[in-house]
């Protein structure tokens, strides 16, 4: 199967628009005539969909930026250590802060940001040295991810029971929450991250042509890298601190957008933002549909769908 013909472009484009229908219909068709329905709608459903969109958009955009930075479609926050670092950082805050109640989102997010920045700086440092092939850089990313995950396991092992319950629930990735408190904190930070990352589209477009060429065309390569990587880490850290580590969105979303609209960064970045918002909300709805009593956390849904999608992507990439 090849997906680079004109017809398949349209198939993917239609699919991307169809993804948007799920969350929109869910919002529009929900009952909200009675008092209880109205409460459920405004205090549970709308915040949950909003959360899904904000987090999904951030992860999709972060994935697109990471792919451009590493010049590799398999580089995403989950393969370059950013997600693992953010997870470890957030876990530190959760375990030592003895639960979310005492610490709150900003502290967890800050801790996640430090973790994400550390791990992704190691991997990007290896990439920027220029002496390693891209596949070696990704292997380093996987090594960093494994190291961070085992450190996280140790943390969970030494944590006391209440902290452990909070941490393990958080680490599955979920969007459920009541009210707008956390949205008010996270939304402005994420919006600023989006604006900065979208403004880097032209720089990233030059960077994907090669570091030396980008330099010769007038780009301050180091500055562009530092801005993109740190803002990307911040967006991932806020998303992870808020809703847990949600993998594969950053991988699948930019890949779909590139299939549908081509590799131009000025299209891929905003496209990934919009598609990520819809895809994560859709996955969350799927998780609720599978079982009403034991809803499946959205992180599990994205992983279940994302893993085969990753394999399909590698096969497709080598066949075309």
């Amino acid at each position, binding site marked *: 199967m090849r997906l680079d013909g004109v017809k398949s472009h349209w198939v993917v484009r239609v699919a991307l628009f169809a993804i948007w229908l799920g969350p929109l219909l869910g919002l529009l068709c929900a009952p909200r005539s009675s008092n209880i329905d109205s409460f459920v709608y405004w205090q549970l459903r709308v915040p949950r969909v909003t959360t899904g969109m904000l987090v999904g958009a951030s992860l999709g955009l972060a994935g697109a930026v990471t792919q451009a930075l590493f010049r590799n479609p398999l580089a995403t926050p989950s393969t370059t250590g950013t997600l693992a670092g953010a997870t470890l950082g957030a876990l530190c805050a959760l375990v030592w802060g003895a639960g979310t109640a005492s610490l709150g989102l900003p502290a967890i997010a800050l801790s996640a940001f430090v973790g994400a920045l550390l791990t992704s700086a190691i991997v990007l440092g290896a990439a920027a040295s220029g002496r390693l092939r891209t596949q070696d850089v990704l292997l380093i990313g996987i090594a960093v991810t494994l190291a961070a995950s085992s450190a996280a396991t140790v943390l969970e092992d030494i944590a006391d029971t209440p902290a452990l319950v909070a941490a393990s629930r958080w680490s599955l990735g979920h969007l459920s929450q009541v009210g707008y408190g956390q949205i008010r904190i996270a939304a402005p930070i994420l919006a600023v991250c989006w604006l900065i990352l979208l403004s880097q589209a032209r720089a990233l477009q030059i960077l994907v042509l090669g570091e030396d060429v980008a330099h010769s065309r007038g780009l301050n*390569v180091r500055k562009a890298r530092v801005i993109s990587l740190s803002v990307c880490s911040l967006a991932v850290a806020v998303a992870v601190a808020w809703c847990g580590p949600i993998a594969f969105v950053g991988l699948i979303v930019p890949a779909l957008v590139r299939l549908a609209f081509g590799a131009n960064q000025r299209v891929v970045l905003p496209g990934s933002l919009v598609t990520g918002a819809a895809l994560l909300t859709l996955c969350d709805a799927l998780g609720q549909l599978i079982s009403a009593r034991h809803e499946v956390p959205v992180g599990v849904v994205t992983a279940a769908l994302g893993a085969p999608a990753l394999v399909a992507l590698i096969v497709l990439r080598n066949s075309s």
Partner: protein
Amino acid sequence: MTQLDIQGLVVSRGSRQILDNITLRVENLERVAVIGPNGAGKTTLMRAILGLLPADSGSILLDGFPTLKLTPLKRAAKVAWLPQQALAEEPISAIEYIRAARFRFGEGDLAARDAALSALKIMGADEWANRLITQLSGGEQQRVALAALFAQEASLLLADEPANHLDPAQQASVWRLLARAATSSSIIVITHDINLVPLLGDLSKTRIVALNQGRIAFDLVANDSSLPNRLRELYGIEMQVYGDGGQRVILPKVSSECPV
């Protein structure tokens, strides 16, 4: 003012000295072909001019400014580069590729598109404007790369083996287009094929600079009569001259005793 002024340049990588005391001046609108055996330091010289490599000692001045002290944007106005294997494996359209070369202008969408299209047109490549660069043939790709070199509108152009891996017809057209790109700029071209140099224009206004083991072996006007002898010394192989001044062709003498 001298456009490029290199004084006593020394560049080494690890313990190995790649460029050893290079002094070279290029004036406005000059044409220079750089030749020399593999590993002589030709590409390193270009990378040093671009500020991609630090020098151990010596200086490289572009219009009087040290290249490493210029901001990337200012340097991009002074010098543009056509590297070997110029085009990336990124499936973007030719016009997007050229637009990336217009980065330094920071211009709006329409202006950038117009400028990119006219650069493609001058290189005879405008009909591929919307094709993906990954789907172009080698010759087509090189035309797009030349259009990018031209679109940057720098006052000094550097081209590193621009006609490598192309068939003879494409090689000739790449060199003619190179001359076209350099109508209002100086140009330095690295090449192994001395017989393509006349396509840059008047031989008496073109210089041939030979590098060997990191040093300048000779620096001659391209129609100098001693050139065949100097080439023999440079490559260590007998050279045969065919034709005369205007249509002179210099080729290695092929015989059964050719060194292997």
